[in-house]
């Protein structure tokens, strides 16, 4: 392409390009588009909140966890009653000789003692005296009678102790 052709091309294009440029120069999106975009921007950043909001949330979560831990440690007996976890290690060791613990549970003879921190489950049910006798409990009453009892199960699902509901002494 020689210089003459190039100049001719430039001459042909010059005026139409200028006109098209002038016509496009004033074009832009309407103001409401800008406002809508900014509103969306504010909404997105209010929801995500930036690092400060995340830090606040993390601090709140940490405080909540700390409070739950403190409450949990301050009420081990209630925790045992709810059957979630045994907080005191070796709580059943002192009743292996057949005596009851402070909650009225009598250990089942020859059952494995609960380990420290072992999860337990307490189930209230009605059993016959014969069933209790089969578990190794010695009964002062007749074997044919029915009893309401709480049976404490260990983590492995085996019964570990029994408590009379109406009469805590078996």
């Amino acid at each position, binding site marked *: 392409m020689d210089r003459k052709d190039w100049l001719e091309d430039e001459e042909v294009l010059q005026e*139409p390009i200028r006109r098209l*440029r002038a016509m496009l120069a004033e074009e832009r999106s309407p103001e409401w588009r800008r406002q809508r975009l900014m509103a969306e921007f504010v909404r997105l950043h209010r929801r995500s909140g930036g690092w400060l909001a995340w830090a606040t949330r993390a601090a709140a979560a940490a405080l909540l966890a700390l409070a739950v831990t403190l409450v949990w440690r301050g009420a081990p007996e209630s925790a045992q009653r709810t059957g979630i976890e045994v907080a005191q290690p070796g709580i059943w060791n002192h009743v292996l000789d057949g005596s009851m613990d402070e909650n009225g549970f009598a250990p089942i003879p020859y059952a494995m003692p609960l380990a420290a921190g072992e999860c337990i489950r307490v189930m209230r049910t009605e059993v016959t005296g014969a069933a209790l006798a089969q578990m190794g409990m010695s009964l002062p009453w007749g074997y044919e009678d029915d009893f309401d009892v709480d049976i404490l199960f260990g983590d492995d699902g085996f019964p570990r102790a029994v408590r009379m509901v109406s009469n805590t002494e078996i």
Partner: protein
Amino acid sequence: MEPSNEQLYCRTRKGDQGAMETLYERCEPPLYRYAFQLSGSRAVAEEVTHEAFLQIIRPESRFNPDRGSLEAYLYGTVRNLIRAARRSQAVEGIEEPAAEDDILRALIDEEMSLALHSALQELPSPFRDAVFLCDLEERSYEEAATTLGCPVGTIRSRLHRARQLLAARLKPLRLSAVSIAR
């Protein structure tokens, strides 16, 4: 010294609304004109420009300043959105491009300018982008190269070739106009 678009973008990611306003004021008008020139429709141009900005403010924004300029990303997004809109129009059986709906065409009353607009729409995308940025937006070759993410030499050659193609389309019209005048 004014912050770059990429610096403004980084500030918007931290929730700086002022940076977002500046970025919008700086980038929206040329982006809208690009979309308008490409689609010929104000409604489409508004929609795709708005969507392009929405894409960069969303938490899942895929723009990475290490991979190119923000403008290149925005122009690419607009181009893809218009392409997608045309595809969906084609699927729905709508004529594409809809000449009767082309408002830009209607606004151009002068025959040569109308021919230029039509010829621009038919140019391959890289050539059209070079003409848009250098001739219609009057940006330097260096700025156009930064925006499109290619070397300055590439911009020069694309512009040269694009002008040849456009002139070839406009010359017959000019000749006929001259002969009618005589």
